[in-house]
């Protein structure tokens, strides 16, 4: 079971999220709607432009995501579509390992009312996730191998940097980011 499936199952205790095959409505619109055992009707999307006969290995129930997560995933999809040499200095596109870690990070965060996420490609195959409030900023750089480094800045000055070894370690970093602002924490 993938991290995505675990996450989906945790949010929908009776749901069965499994791989399935499908075909897109048009070549550029791959939105599927299906019902799962919770009787919830969820929309699933794919970034694959070759929709016909696509083998789906995972799904994202977008209704369960916060708006910042949905926008972040859309942005991630754009970043993942970059070609070879996208930076004009010979970089490869973001690696699959970096993409997987970025997606796992985004969907694992259970803070609904979070500032918008920026997703930035990094030369060499990495991805950087960035959040910024009026006084604080947090950067998570996902290296090409999927490991994560972070930087916290306050009033434009770096205050801490380090490595994350598990994606659940992002929680205290985000708590620090938004600690001076009212937030809604999901149950």
């Amino acid at each position, binding site marked *: 079971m993938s991290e995505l499936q675990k996450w989906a199952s945790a949010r929908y205790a009776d749901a069965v999220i499994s791989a399935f095959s499908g075909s897109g409505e048009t070549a550029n619109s791959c939105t599927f709607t299906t019902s799962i055992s919770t009787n919830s009707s969820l929309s699933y999307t794919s970034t694959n432009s070759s929709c016909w006969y696509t083998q789906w290995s995972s799904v994202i129930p977008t209704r369960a995501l916060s708006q910042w997560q949905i926008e972040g995933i859309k942005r991630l999809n*754009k970043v993942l579509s970059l070609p070879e040499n*996208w930076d004009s200095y010979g970089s490869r596109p973001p690696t699959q390992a970096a993409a997987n870690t970025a997606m796992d990070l985004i969907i694992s965060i259970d803070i609904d009312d979070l500032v918008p996420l*920026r997703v930035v*490609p990094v030369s060499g195959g990495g991805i950087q996730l*960035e959040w910024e409030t009026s006084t604080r900023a947090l*950067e998570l750089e996902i290296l090409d191998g999927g490991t994560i480094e972070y930087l916290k800045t306050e009033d434009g000055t770096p205050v801490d940097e380090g490595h994350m070894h598990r994606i659940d370690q992002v929680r205290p970093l985000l708590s620090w980011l938004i600690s001076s602002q009212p937030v809604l924490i999901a149950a």
Partner: protein
Amino acid sequence: MPERQDDPTIGKSERLWRRIHPFQINWNANPPIVSTGAFNTSDGLSVSIASETTLEALTQSHPEDSVVEFEVGFARSLGCLIFRDPTEEDPAHALVWGPKSRGRLSKTQMDSLRNAATVLIYRRPQAEN
């Protein structure tokens, strides 16, 4: 991995230019802000020595890119090595080699370099944000 050595013939007041992909700029900020991700140095940060090229030459094949500038001396103050690495496309090409493995900079050093850099050319993409 060959040992990297700083090139002392590149003076500390020499300026270095780097193209920036539009995805690496926060266009919603005013003025737009270049991400520290644009200063990542995986196997060296590619730059051009300003006195040995022109902005036109740097961007002629990359009309969608913005360009930033910073000084050699500042990069060295962060612990970076600067050395020439000419290519067929860009004889002024050089590398900024950070102190970490694979020539990377720490996140704090990337942030410092970003803050010290001047944006010479902003090229806002039509479909970006």
